[in-house]
């Protein structure tokens, strides 16, 4: 199926068929590779197994702009949801990256990736209100709900965010939506990264309406969003040059030249961290707390750089077949992860090994 055909597919609820496939796989301890739009298959460790296609389970279930929440089946294309929200002057404030038109909302939640607004608007997990998932026994379980304030039961729904499909098949998601800002301006500054970082640290201590800050290796791009007066006042105060608002989509979707490199590291570090020699060209997003580096340096070098700075490193793109992608966990935490995995997926059928070996 091509992406174009996929986006024209009718809404359908196929929970029973998915549950049947899960039960059969669990009974035989066969691995399943959960696939939405198949736009992020390269992310994470490799996983074998029979394809479990979720893209046909699609359609917006409920959306009332006054409730600030959208509930949709996992296979619903992200683009469809974004268009629906835009028509009502609302957005997904966490700016999920999209790597193709087939990208689904279920895949967005499973991967848990967040765009440039992350330090200001929160991550995917911060906006997730609830999920319905299939566990390894093929049972459809609902965690969380559709309201913002909800503390009944453990936040099992947030666990699904970023779990890379290893804990269950996401069926439906409820996500908080945000009114689109009245005004948004992009400014650029001809500063190197250290000078940019100093400037950002200074301005982020004040309540300026900043909701994006990235350095592309040559320039700092700063985005101001919110009510008009606050945005204009900050713009006057900061100076800089008018920038191209398309830059935000480019950094969000990894469309900058750096991302053409075969091996890309993601360093998640404190915003104020002064990193040492990065060994390759870098893009600093999230005001410096997410650093992309194109380098062939050994994994231990990159992981040490990140941990020394108080963060962790992911071999985001270009990992070899036996290489770890995500930062190794301390043994006590890895054991805990294995016990949590067994809660949802005792037969170990969901995306085995995609996150860590043995999960």
């Amino acid at each position, binding site marked *: 199926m091509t992406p174009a055909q996929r986006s024209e597919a009718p809404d359908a609820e196929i929970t029973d068929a998915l549950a049947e496939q899960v039960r059969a796989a669990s009974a035989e301890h066969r691995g399943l590779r959960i696939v939405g739009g198949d736009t992020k298959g390269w992310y994470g460790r490799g996983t074998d197994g029979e394809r479990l296609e979720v893209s046909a389970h699609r359609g917006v279930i409920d959306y009332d702009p006054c409730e600030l929440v959208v509930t949709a089946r996992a296979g619903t294309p992200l683009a469809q949801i974004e268009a629906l929200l835009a028509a009502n002057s609302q957005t997904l404030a966490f700016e999920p990256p999209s790597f193709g038109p087939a990208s689904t909302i279920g895949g967005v939640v499973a991967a848990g990736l967040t765009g440039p607004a992350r330090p200001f608007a929160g991550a995917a997990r911060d906006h997730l209100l609830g999920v319905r998932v299939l566990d390894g026994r093929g049972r459809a379980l609902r965690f969380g709900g559709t309201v913002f304030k*909800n503390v009944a039961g453990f936040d099992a729904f947030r666990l699904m965010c970023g779990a890379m499909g290893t804990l269950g098949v996401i069926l439906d998601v409820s996500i908080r939506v945000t*009114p689109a800002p009245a005004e948004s301006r992009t400014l650029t500054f001809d500063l190197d990264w250290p000078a940019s970082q100093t400037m950002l640290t200074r301005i982020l201590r004040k309540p300026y309406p900043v909701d994006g800050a990235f350095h592309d290796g040559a320039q700092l791009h700063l985005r101001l969003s919110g009510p008009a007066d606050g945005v204009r006042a900050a713009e006057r105060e900061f100076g800089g040059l008018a920038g191209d608002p398309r830059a935000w989509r480019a950094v969000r979707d990894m469309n900058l030249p750096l991302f053409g490199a075969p091996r890309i590291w993601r360093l998640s570090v404190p915003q104020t961290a002064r990193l040492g020699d990065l060994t390759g060209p870098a893009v600093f997003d999230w005001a410096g707390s997410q650093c992309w580096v194109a380098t062939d340096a050994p994994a231990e070098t990159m992981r040490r750089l990140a941990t020394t700075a108080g963060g962790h490193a992911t071999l985001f793109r270009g990992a070899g077949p036996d290489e770890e992608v995500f930062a190794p966990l301390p043994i006590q935490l890895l054991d805990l992860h294995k016990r949590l995995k067994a809660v949802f997926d005792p037969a170990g059928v969901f995306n085995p090994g995609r996150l860590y070996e043995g999960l």
Partner: protein
Amino acid sequence: MLDQFDPLLDPTFATGDRDRLIARLRDIVPLRGLITQIEGMRVYETDGLAAYRGLPSVVVLPETTAQVSAVLKVCAELGTPVVARGAGTGLSGGALPFPGSVLLSLARFNRILAIDPDARTARVQPGVRNLAISEATAAHGLFYAPDPSSQIACSIGGNVAENAGGVHCLKYGLTVHNIQRLEIVTIAGEVLEIGGDALDAPGYDLLALLTGSEGLLGVITEVTVKLLPTPVHAQVLLAAFPEVTHAGDAVAEIIGAGIIPAGLEMMDHLALNAAESHVHAGYPIDAAAILLCEIDGAAEDVEADLVRVGEICRRAGASEVRWARDETERRRFWAGRKGAFPAMGRMAPDYYCIDGTIPRRRLAEVLTEITQLSERYGLPVANVFHAGDGNLHPLILYDAALPGQMEAAEALGGKILELCVAVGGTITGEHGVGREKINQMCVQFTQAEIETFAALKAAFDPAGLLNPGKAIPTLARCAEFGGMHVHEGQLTFPDLERL
């Protein structure tokens, strides 16, 4: 009453040797850190839900993470249940002692360890009061956003355990959105770092799982919170309505207009009169309901948005709209709202606070239904709520000295929670399930979901020693209580025998 734990419906543990337990704990904590006399333990027999009372076996007040770890190891070895306690302000009985338990107070963990104004974080011990964090960081122009009404007394560790909210969480989020690292101790005595100093951590989102876990998964010994720059300007508007439903309509209109207030609160006639006589906030006492709407940001934007909010309120039928004249009046408007719970003490000898959340569009019908329930049970209900996020706090007024009233209040509260679930909401928006809403968990969740919660707990605490009988009901309890309830056309627990 639910403060009585039922061996048939709640977890049970073999009766331990108390003298041996005391001897072992004495080796760990200093003399002042162990309370074994009943008079001394009375302070700990209840939390903010004062109707529920019980005594632990002993109270222990460790002072270091190493001591917490050692205490938990002893409890694990002896099979003794443990109830962690912060400031004891919780409203759901989450810190109610379990019979025979060790009550583990984190009160001595009361230091702010570090403030990093550049990174906009503070590393604090769990016993630090919520408001103390904002007070300590104010000099840097920073504050900690979640502000439960009890913020003057409640502790940050308790806030994390309950995923506490507050009047400003519509804009700034709940506790889970405002912390980035925890140090916890497991029942096995392991010290784990959850989350980190970066914005995310590798692996599953354990930080989210631990937040709001109500002391069932681990004991929090350190918290790193995120701080925000203090807004330049904040202004609050008060709108009075002759009908409660008109106020509800105004709330939907404000949100629908794309305005995100820093706070959007509603009080009905009974609640605002109680608050007014308690705090003298200047509320219009004839109104059926008032809305408080606060906007923060740049001064011109605040003014522009508040003008729009005022117009929306008038269109929705407000009889009066006024802005706080100055900062003093703004604070007084909020003092009335934050003092609404204590003010209830003047209206009736006892009150029972409910904490459901509903979709905003169901507000009018839920309020109408609550009025009918109130009449049916013969108990007045005052309504105070975080209208912006649909989080209701109906306050049931009763007199525990009158026979049957406490039971009636508990039953009426249960009905209101079931109503919240029926309209697509939840039984608890911010106070937690605790002991209080243990039965209603069986209404909101299916057997398979409850089993999953229990298994998640077991992944941390296989013997079930941490805060037993709270938050996650046993299947036996749901079979007993859930027998009357039908979930999506089916009995909630069809394959369990009814007791």
